[in-house]
């Protein structure tokens, strides 16, 4: 029941928000965002006590992994919703708010459905809901970003559809029931009997397809454009959770392939693309001149790192990767929101134009520094722990060169980020000092505190939850 309510809330809100105006719109937006978050946490707590909520004849089904992603989408959705009023001019809110809620809905549906076909439709839906948001400012640059985003992700996702067809084919040719042949929970126990070569081929298409949505190199070219041109709340959602939804699809499908063809096939592909993504991102992080693009390239780096964790496998590798997804989602969404504030203060997204941030905007500057340190994986923040888990898993599984290479790339990226950060925080400011801070910072601070919690003191049950998710997908 609560699961249906969770998915209905953003859809109904989107409908209402197209007609509501003024204060009503603001209230509906806030109410819907709050309700979505509350329902998501409610469903999550149901899962924590050991149930598996399902609805619509099993079409929706939330296990531990889905609950983890639902909570993440709703949390970052809430963060984005708080900042949304700043970036949607009064006259354009009836366009901005509905699309924002639809965007959140498509991501929630993608992670809440048990059906791989519906998941595909929902993930494609994320592109369609967000393409107008990317082009919201209707400049030449945002138009270019939106077109690239639409075309590349549509082609990518069509490749994922091809992979889905092949999974369906493998199941149907073994006599799977037509209407339910794409249900993940029913496919997994049967996966051992499915044609291994067909599933391997399917996974190649699925990884390239959903990898395009996740921003894996070389399918990433749309990402820095779209993430930097979109309004900050949309960038926060895209970098924070949309990429993770793409990775989520890969995690689910990989479990099927591994059960059929054994881990080596998917392992090779994940490690290869993961390392390539980290390498390309590290190179671009050294030459990016625009801080929003820099944050976007850093997302590619982290997506690569998550793939590395998934590739290493085992409870540490997969658990670390899933924890890293959450840590990165919090850190990156906070950074994009702060970057939006910085851009408003300095009137530019160029790194060279932003100097003396700590002096002119002390609160924003300090928070930006803290979030950047979190992103770089500095303790006591959670990303440090998940990175240790991922590389620990690598060495534990007997890899030597790959984790070493990954660590090297991480250091290069670290230095690139630090260089840009130093330039922005210090130096003589061309902008006058202004008081900043205020109530809007509370959620940002809360997200940073959450990152310290995942870094220093795991709440009871987190270790068990990560282990359970890894077991669920066969590790």
């Amino acid at each position, binding site marked *: 029941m609560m699961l249906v309510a969770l998915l209905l809330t953003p859809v109904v809100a989107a409908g209402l928000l197209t007609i509501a105006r003024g204060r009503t719109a603001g209230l509906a937006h806030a109410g819907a965002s709050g309700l979505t978050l509350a329902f998501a946490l409610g469903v999550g707590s149901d899962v924590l006590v050991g149930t598996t909520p399902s609805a619509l004849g099993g079409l929706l089904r939330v296990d531990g992994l889905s609950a983890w992603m639902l909570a993440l989408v709703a949390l970052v959705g809430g963060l984005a919703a708080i900042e949304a009023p700043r970036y949607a001019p009064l006259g354009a809110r009836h366009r901005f708010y509905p699309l924002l809620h639809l965007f959140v809905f498509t991501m929630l549906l993608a992670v809440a459905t048990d059906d791989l076909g519906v998941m595909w439709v929902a993930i494609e839906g994320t592109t369609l809901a967000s393409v107008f948001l990317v082009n919201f400012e209707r400049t030449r640059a945002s138009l270019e970003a939106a077109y690239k985003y639409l075309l590349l992700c549509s082609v990518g996702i069509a490749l994922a559809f091809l992979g889905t*067809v092949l999974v369906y084919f493998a199941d149907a*040719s073994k006599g799977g029931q037509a209407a339910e042949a794409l249900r993940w929970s029913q496919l997994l126990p049967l996966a051992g009997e499915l044609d291994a070569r067909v599933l391997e081929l399917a996974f190649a298409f699925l990884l390239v397809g959903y990898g395009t949505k996740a921003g894996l190199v070389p399918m990433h070219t749309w990402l820095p454009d779209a993430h930097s041109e979109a309004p900050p709340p949309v960038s926060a959602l895209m970098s924070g959770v949309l990429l993770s939804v793409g990775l989520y699809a890969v995690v689910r499908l990989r479990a099927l392939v591994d059960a059929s063809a054994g881990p080596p096939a998917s392992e090779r592909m994940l490690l290869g693309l993961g390392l390539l993504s980290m390498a390309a991102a590290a190179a671009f992080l050294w030459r990016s001149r625009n801080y929003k693009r820099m944050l976007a390239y850093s997302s590619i780096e982290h997506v690569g790192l998550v793939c590395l964790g998934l590739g290493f496998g085992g409870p540490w590798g997969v658990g670390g990767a899933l924890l890293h997804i959450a840590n990165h989602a919090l850190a990156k969404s906070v950074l994009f929101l702060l970057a939006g504030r910085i851009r408003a203060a300095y009137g530019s997204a160029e790194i060279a134009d932003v100097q003396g941030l700590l002096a002119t905007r002390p609160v924003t500057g300090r928070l930006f520094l803290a979030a950047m340190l979190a992103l770089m994986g500095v303790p006591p923040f959670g990303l440090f722990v998940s990175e240790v888990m991922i590389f620990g898993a690598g060495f534990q599984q007997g890899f030597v060169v790959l984790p070493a290479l990954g660590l090297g790339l991480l250091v290069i990226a670290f230095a690139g980020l630090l260089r840009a950060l130093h330039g922005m925080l210090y130096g003589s400011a061309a902008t006058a000092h202004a008081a900043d801070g205020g109530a809007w910072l509370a959620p940002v601070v809360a997200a940073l505190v959450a990152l310290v919690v995942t870094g220093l003191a795991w709440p009871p049950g987190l270790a068990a939850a990560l282990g359970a998710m890894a077991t669920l997908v066969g590790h």
Partner: protein
Amino acid sequence: MREVANLLGFVGLVLALLVVWRQSWRGRLRLFVAQSAVLAVLAIAIGLYANRRGLLVAALGFAALKVWIIPRALTRIAAGPPARTASPRRSAAASLLTAGVLVVVAFTIMRPVTAASALPTAGGIPLAFGMALIGLLVCVTGRDVLGQILGFLLFENGVFALALLATYGLPGLVEAGVFLDVLVIVLIVEGIAVQMRREHDSLEVDRFQELRG
């Protein structure tokens, strides 16, 4: 059924190859419509043969979308000033050669699938995948919005055909989602094209030069 599937699959592939060869936009659009019609007939034939009513509905939906609604939208996008510039493009022969190589690649890649299929339509699977790859080629070599979206639609047709030949179509809910998705993509592209004409006075993607680095 085997002969029908092979024949229609082959005709679909030849039509895709002709799109690579043709230079004029209207000619290419007509070829796309013809290919879509052939695939709709294929869906109806398989639906009748396998006695699947859902597939007949899907075939009608596919025909309405790809033979009627989308071509009209594409015509709207192409209509109006400015005329497409007649800048030199790579030779049709080279593109055709690449497309031919892709067909061979399609046969190689799809071998495990064809081998695992017990359906009489299995022989057409590599043909359908060939159509999809040629669509991808048209998409990546497209110089303007129209060329790229046409390539995407051809690719989509190929995947539809593959699903048809390998599995007799996916569950109705998924097919419906795919149709809606393609329709929305084309409508969004129409909106983007309007803005492109206003900003750049052209639909050529070379004009996109704002975002670098």
